[in-house]
């Protein structure tokens, strides 16, 4: 029998791991929720946007490291990678909206969902054709340091992943609450008809929403590359679906819900794996989610569907 202290350390260790995993799910699932809030569709290409964002991050990081590694300190290269990747990846989001979804704005939602899946496949095969099937490895952007705090092992990479993810979400919250575009996005998710009457163009707000989702996903991709430094063209599929589950669990269209559910998903996955064999992890974790959704189909913060007006 382990002592209580050891059990607590074990718990803390898993808590850190859960926070790291939850950070990825939370940041990615926000992209699903924001788009749903504004356009009432799930952008099923989002997982692959995350993948493309990670590849962009990989490219920028490699370039910057080759050019400046000897001159500049590591953290400036890291920040440079994040900022440039975010900027470039947000244009991928804009492209997906303008080319993929805009022509289908008044089409049935099922058509848009199929388009999303198709865009995802195009991205996957596109990367496959351009870079080949070989797995690439993400260059480390900082030297990994491990701290031992009372038996709990922390790496600086883990801490950074958790903190940057939180900072991104706080910045997003500020954007949504304080700026005119954020207000328009919030308004869109409650009533669609009245927003254009305020002089707000959907053709501005929709691509902006996609851009933010893609930008967030790409930063998450860089962080993901630091934690699991292997890139392949299908890396966005599983994580995309899991983030989609988080968006549903949090309540369609709710950003707060998506973030919360993302972390919850991380916790459930990690703690299930500590009790059961890890091969059963997803089976048990997602059965729990299924059970929650059975009793609360609209998720944590979702609105009843009837309250949303749409032409």
């Amino acid at each position, binding site marked *: 029998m382990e002592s209580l202290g050891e059990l607590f350390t074990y718990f803390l260790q898993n808590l850190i791991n859960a926070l790291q995993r939850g950070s990825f799910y939370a940041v990615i699932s926000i992209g699903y929720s924001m788009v749903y809030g504004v356009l009432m569709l799930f952008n099923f290409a989002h997982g692959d946007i995350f993948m493309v964002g990670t590849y962009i991050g990989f490219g920028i990081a490699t370039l910057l490291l080759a050019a400046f590694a000897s001159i500049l300190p590591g953290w400036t290269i890291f920040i440079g990678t994040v900022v440039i990747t975010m900027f470039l990846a947000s244009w991928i989001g804009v492209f997906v909206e303008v080319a993929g979804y805009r022509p289908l704005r008044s089409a049935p939602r099922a058509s848009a969902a199929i388009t999303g899946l198709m865009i995802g496949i195009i991205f996957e095969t596109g990367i496959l054709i351009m870079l080949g099937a070989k797995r690439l490895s993400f260059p480390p952007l900082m030297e990994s340091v491990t701290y031992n705090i009372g038996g709990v092992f922390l790496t600086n990479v883990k801490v950074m992943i958790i903190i940057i993810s939180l900072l991104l979400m706080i910045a997003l919250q500020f954007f949504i609450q304080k*700026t*005119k575009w954020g*207000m328009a996005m919030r308004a869109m998710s409650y009533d669609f008809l009245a927003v254009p009457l*305020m*002089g707000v163009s959907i053709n501005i707000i929709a691509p902006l929403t996609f851009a933010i989702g893609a930008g967030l996903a790409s930063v998450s991709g860089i962080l993901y590359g630091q934690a699991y430094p292997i890139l392949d063209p299908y890396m966005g599929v599983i994580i995309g679906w899991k983030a989609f589950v988080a968006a549903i669990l949090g309540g369609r269209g709710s950003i707060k819900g998506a973030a919360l559910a993302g972390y919850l998903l991380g916790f459930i996955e990690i703690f299930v794996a500590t009790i059961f064999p890890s091969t059963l992890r997803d089976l048990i974790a997602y059965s729990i989610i299924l059970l929650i959704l059975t009793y609360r189909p609209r998720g944590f913060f979702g609105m009843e569907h009837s309250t949303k007006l749409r032409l």
Partner: protein
Amino acid sequence: MTALLNVNQMTHYFGGLRAVHNYNLSINPKQITGLIGPNGAGKTTIFNLITGVYTPTEGAITLSGENIKGLETNEIASKGLGRTFQNLALWRHMNVLDHIKMAHYSQLSYGLLGAFFNTPACRRQESEVEENAYRLLELFDIKQYAFDIITSLPYGAQRRVEMARAMATNPKILFLDEPTAGMTPDELIQMIKIIRQVHQDFNVAIFLIEHRMKFVMELCEFIQTLVFGEVIAEGEPEEIQNNPEVIEAYLGKEDLT
């Protein structure tokens, strides 16, 4: 005097159904015009056609002499057309002040970088908007609800928020879709007062759909009666009130009763 809003020979089909036929309308600056007619006559459709929710099959629409047919709703709105809805199109979970601030969207010209660095210009714009928003809240007697979530307000106050929101966009003409629907007689009287005041203070023309005759007769200078998508009578309130066709449309033919 040239008309502020001019609709010429507007016809609209939904598939094979002719919803509006050869509709003409001319509203002068500061004029209050009413649109009445039985349920399903196409009144709200006419609102949707002019405000750009649908594009009319045929006809021309101009606002201040400029063509607005075929433009997006947001473009038409920024040319000076404000609107409220029959079933309140408010934003649940947003507070009253945010509703009014949101309506100032076009007046906030700061860019993404300005917002990111919170520049003085950006802050100044925001505070101007806030000031103007409070002025509107006061005018519409909803200041006490400024930080309340919209769904917690009494119905009449929600209607006033919607109107304040429409006025915040600085329209030249205001479209009101059944502004007194579901109101108590007291709220109705207050609404008449508010519309009069808005009309005076903002120098705005008003086009309204209403069912309550008392309200229409009291406010409107000119009234159109719409039946099955066609105007069967138009004129000053007294003419309309005594027009046999209008009475028939509302009450049925005499010999049938």
